[in-house]
């Protein structure tokens, strides 16, 4: 029998002071990120803000800076430009531009030599992509730029997506709380919801710190990991419930819970290993489209595993300590 984890008796619950501090920090980070999103300071994807994304390739190799120069002519030198590669995709770039301005008023400036520069700084999302394409074609006259994909989104689409994303998150968390409440009891339901919230906030916070773009796919990943992290929590809770049936003395409460965590520890680790293995393959081989999605999931799996051991169960212990229930 091959075993990663031998029979253990680690005092997880005893570490709760340390884990509460760490988790508090992670959650605070996540809340900060959440506030930043609301006031519009976070790095949101064009799905939410409106804007344009252009993927295309040049005949000959071009640097990111050269592309930036071409876009600067039309006043978009601050666009996010990323070089990508793949089979049949040499000299390819993703150019992302966020825009939430509604009207099309061009701005005109003059250079010292009197050359006029017209910049369409204020264009509705739908026309931004065309503008970028034109600017690049005008700049690289002897190096053909072929578009592989464009995506123009009006900020009004973003408003709707944001509403839908918030609805999905709220309803999913409520649904989960109710399910755990029915299957276990209220305390377990609350503890599981806290742990889930914690995981989502932590990943959001890390994304914010890394200044990675929060796109619709990342939000999808956050919801998915909410579901996944609960799987872990439920497995631990299930064992706690089973072991509490033999629960006799109140002083044993914490140690019963600790034993339960230890008993399912090898399952927790093995499942995390297999899941993270597949997520890492998406991360490495899935390409640009899925990278941020997979990264959020990978972070979520690590944090979700941690929280089912170090957050959800200690919450129950603390609750029991403060408001003991009568022994059956």
């Amino acid at each position, binding site marked *: *029998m*091959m075993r990663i984890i031998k029979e253990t008796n680690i005092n997880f619950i005893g570490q709760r002071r340390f884990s509460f501090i760490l988790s508090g920090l992670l959650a605070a980070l996540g809340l900060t990120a959440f506030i930043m999103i609301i006031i519009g300071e976070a790095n949101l994807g064009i799905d939410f803000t409106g804007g344009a994304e252009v*993927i295309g390739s040049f005949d000959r190799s071009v640097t990111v800076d050269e592309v930036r120069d071409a876009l600067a002519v039309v006043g978009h030198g601050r666009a996010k430009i990323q070089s990508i590669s793949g*089979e049949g*995709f040499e000299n390819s770039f993703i150019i992302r531009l966020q825009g939430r301005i509604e009207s099309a*008023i*061009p701005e*005109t400036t003059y250079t010292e030599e009197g050359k*006029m520069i*017209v910049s369409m700084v204020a264009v509705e999302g*739908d026309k931004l*992509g065309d503008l970028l394409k034109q600017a690049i074609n005008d700049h690289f006259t002897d190096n053909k730029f072929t*578009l*592989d*994909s*464009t*995506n*123009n*989104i*009006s900020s009004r689409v973003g408003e709707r*997506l944001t509403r*839908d994303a918030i*609805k*999905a998150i709220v*309803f*999913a968390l409520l*649904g*989960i709380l109710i*399910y755990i409440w029915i299957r276990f009891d209220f305390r377990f339901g609350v503890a599981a919801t806290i742990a889930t919230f914690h995981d989502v906030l932590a990943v959001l916070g890390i994304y914010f710190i890394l200044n990675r773009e929060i796109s619709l*796919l990342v939000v*999808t990943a956050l*919801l*998915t990991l909410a*579901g996944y992290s*609960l*799987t872990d929590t*439920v*497995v631990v809770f*299930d*064992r706690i419930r*089973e072991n509490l049936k033999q629960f006799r003395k109140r002083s044993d409460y914490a140690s019963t819970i600790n034993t339960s965590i230890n*008993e*399912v520890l*090898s*399952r927790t680790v*093995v*499942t995390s290993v*297999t*899941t993270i*293995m*597949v*997520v890492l*393959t*998406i991360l490495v*081989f*899935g*390409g640009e*489209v*899925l990278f941020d*999605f997979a990264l959020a999931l990978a972070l979520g799996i690590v944090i979700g595993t941690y929280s089912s051991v170090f957050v959800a169960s200690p919450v129950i212990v603390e609750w029991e300590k403060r408001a003991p229930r009568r022994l059956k």
Partner: protein
Amino acid sequence: MRRGQITWLFAIATAVIVSFVLLYPTVEFYSQDREALKIDNPKDFYSLKKKALRLGLDLQGGVHIVLQVSDPRGGSVSADIQDQVLEKIRIRVDKYGIAEPEIVKSGTDQIVVDLPGFTDIDTAKTLIGSTAQLQFHLLRSPEECQNLLQAIDSVLAIKLAGPGDESELAEAEAVPKSDTAEEAITSLFGEEVIDTSQEVLDEEDFAKSHPFSAILDRWLGNWWQITMENFYQAQQYLEMPEIQEVIPSNYKLAWGTRPVKGGDRRFQTLYILNRNIELTGESLVSAKETYDQLRQPVVNFELDSDGARRFSRVTGQHIEENLAIVIDDRVESAPVIQSRISKNGQITMGGDATISDAYLLAILLKAGALPADVEILQSTVVGPALGQDSINRGKQASMIGLILVMVFMAIYYKFSGIIADIALSLNILFVLAFMVIPGVNATLTMPGIAGLILTVGIMVDSNVLIFERIREELRTGKTIRAAIDAGYDRALLTIIDSHVTTLITALFLFIFGSGPIRGFAVTLSVGVFLSLFTALFITKVIFDMRKKYKSLSI
């Protein structure tokens, strides 16, 4: 083996065979040269494609457009209007010959159009996003246009000079400020005639006193041409409220549909029209693209009797004048009326129009104008190469992920791990087969592939739970048979509980998500749901094939 066992094995074998049958068209379709088949035998192509696994736009390439429908009179759009717009767009798309379009309502005032395999985004935008309101306008006379130009110049000169510069401009500004636009024009007329051929003013002074004329490239009677570099500048000037005031209310300024080439430069044309509409597209009964005698693309149209009467009167009265053909406030062209036209007319295509532009216009005119204003909120195009790249990456990632997990399970749980691996393979087979069941017809997207890969991780979790439980039971000294049974028994509820939470989140992702996200929700939930069957049931059947175990490799 007991009889019950044989029945179960038979059931599993049937499920596997059915899955292979369901997936056969998919393999056949995607393993051959689809482009060649499409040309050689379109009927086979589409019947096979219908049975094959449907790929999302992100994987097979195509155009995705979100259209906002709004009532020009303001207020909310009725469901009836939304339906009518959808129907018109469907007619246009069908007539243009785009196969398998997906046109659906979204919310109460949006329409989403997916055109899989179609990647000409500009055509798609015109085809779907045009109101296609056809109007015929006469042009204002060259004198009137000249007056308007002077009025614009003088107002703009004052505006651009700013309040502090009035004295400097007094010379150039020959026009006294007048209260109404009409007055401005009359007072201008005759007082100062700009003669551009004589370079009396040096260029800089001219630009200062005639800022609008200065950015125009050519004056051609009742239309003006502007180079592309000055196009945005001109638009900006014309949008100024002061300039808007100078334009008389019975005038209408409209840009040409597409730029015109002249040498190595490109020009935009600004037409000065009579605001009065002589005829609209409602009188049209048919439209067809063709070439005229000069091999230029044109659209021939036929009018109904009422329209023919009105058209005949207008063209009869204005021979030798220009008639502008205006589509959605853009002038397609403004040919000179040669003779009276009644029933059959011809639209000359302006700019560098090709026959496909004429074809597109004919379709728009035939389908008729939309009963509401539309605006494109989102337009996405994914090229087939990018889609193919995504497929390749998805395939690679799933194969590697699957192999890694399978190898891990086989090493960690030995023989039992291999049983889990069999269940895992069957799970993926069943998920894919489920997606092509007629009536289900789910769409596989790139996030959907991620969902499928994630299912692999989640599915083995069920077997990990069971195996770990069996190991625990073995440690308590149970016989192998009893340990297996107890392992499955005890793990059952845990597995169900833990998967329900994933299903809850997937459900809400499906309800509130769109396009690719839905694809993810579908593969994830189908995968998790079917894994209950494969991980619990199929592995148990395999374990139960032997009644007594002397030793268990786990």
